[in-house]
């Protein structure tokens, strides 16, 4: 069985309505995270993710600038007021693991999840996803890439038989290149 891509989508920063974004912790989340979570929602719906077991879905969050806005906000508070000026609820936002965790909680992904960071195009984002499926850690991986402009691309990669069970047609077949 091959790994296939069953859905992809784009979300451009200029088209993203931050005010319309609904989430319990919205006030604590940076725009980068909100965009990533929005993309995850779209893809999850498209591929009927709720028909997959949560253990069978993993996530790769890839990007080249990531949580920089949160880091700068945090640093500013630290510089002006010392550690007492830091909002403990926003401390996790400076870590790349946090937007990933927000997505995982949102779609209930309990498979392998990773933030893969690079200043360049990151072919390992796709490679990591495929390795996890091939190794048998999960059946599907959601890959979300966010650029420095907060433009976002997402795709859903899975085992061919996994999408067939849900009545979803593969759109691309992934062929390994070394």
């Amino acid at each position: 069985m091959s790994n296939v891509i069953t859905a992809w989508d784009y979300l451009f920063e200029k088209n993203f309505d931050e005010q319309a974004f609904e989430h319990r912790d919205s006030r604590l989340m940076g725009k980068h995270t909100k965009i990533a979570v929005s993309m995850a929602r779209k893809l999850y719906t498209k591929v009927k993710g709720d028909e997959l077991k949560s253990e069978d879905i993993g996530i790769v969050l890839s990007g080249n600038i990531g949580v920089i806005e949160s880091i700068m906000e945090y640093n500013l508070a630290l510089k002006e007021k010392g550690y007492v000026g830091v909002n403990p609820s926003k401390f996790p936002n400076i870590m790349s693991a946090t937007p990933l965790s927000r997505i995982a909680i949102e779609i209930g992904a309990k498979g392998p999840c990773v933030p893969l960071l690079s200043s360049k195009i990151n072919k390992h984002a796709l490679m990591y996803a495929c390795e996890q499926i091939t190794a048998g850690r999960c059946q599907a991986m959601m890959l979300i890439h966010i650029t420095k402009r907060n433009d976002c691309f997402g795709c859903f990669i899975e085992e061919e038989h996994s999408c067939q069970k849900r009545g979803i047609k593969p759109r691309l077949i992934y062929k390994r290149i070394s």
Partner: protein
Amino acid sequence: MNKPDKHDVCVSGVGIVSAFGDTLEYFIKGMNSNKSDFTYISDEYILKNNQIPVLKSSCQPESKTPEDRILSMGNKAIHDALKDRNSDCLPSIDRICLIIGSGMGLIDQYYYDGNKYNESGYFYSLAEKLSEISKLNCEAVYIGNACSAGSQAISYGMDLLKSERYDLVIAGGIDILSQAAYAGFLRLNAIDLDGCKPFDRRRKGIAIGEGAVFYTLERRENVEFNENIYCSLTGSGVTCDAYHIVQMDPDGKEAIRAMDQALSFSGLKKEAIDLIVAHGTGTAQNDKIESQMINQYFADHASELYVTAPKGAIGHTGGASGAFGVLVAIGAFSTGIIPPICNFEEPDPECNVSIVLESSIKHDIKLAMVNAFAFGGTNVVVLCKKEESGVVQ
């Protein structure tokens, strides 16, 4: 035990920068001494909060900036791992991948530069920078998954070698003393200013540490010529709690699944495990949950294995902590001694596992499980197996 296979992933070289020094020998000696060597640093790192006890890497020359510090530590550990592996034959290896696990990476450099580093990619360029200064002609990958980053780098390296995408992987973890992290953990009341005491009834939190550990990983077929095999890595499990951005799921179900996945990939039974190198952060809730998980998963066997936790001695090294866990396992394989949990004095009835107490224990360890659980809920478990021949002393 299953038979050696040519696709087994072996550790052929080790490079270390730690609070106990920069060799395996110093590290093992330090771990077995049952002492943590606090250094007090002032506002060089933590603004408006003087004299903070931290576990600073002792061999590190004073660095001018956080970027200098992380790059020089990383370069040294990578260089030493390659030297240990015998890098003379590197030119003959075509497919090399460097995988860096770091929770905080270059975050503190922004602060030092007055938040002016706004250019694209700077923050995420750690792996590329380390690859460049190490003069390695290789792919560079940066995994930023908080405290499980180092273990996840090793796990991914194992995957890449098993699927034969690369012939040599240099993988490990690194984090420096970070004022950003320190300030955040202080505000979360997660720091124990009297030192980290994993699984102790009096535990109040973490101690801040720093360090770097990198390994050269190769398939057995490529290292059979090499007597320098520290251990084989037989399996890894990677799962996510999908529960909370900072808290572990109290039911531990996904962390247990990571343990089971690692064992299942290795083809070994849980009864074969002698040692657990626990994540053991010294926080009230996490140590309790980890103890419960060990008891639940191992059932009757839980009383027959040993549990140790290095964070009492070296502090929480962030993204490097899982990689340091593997180093503790290697130390136990090579010396037959399990280091005690530093600062442990009072048992906690809620952490009822076979922990190594005040002094080290002699035991021939054959299979060790290394746990790493991160902020964000990622659980990574790596299984390390002693090599019956060729263990480095």
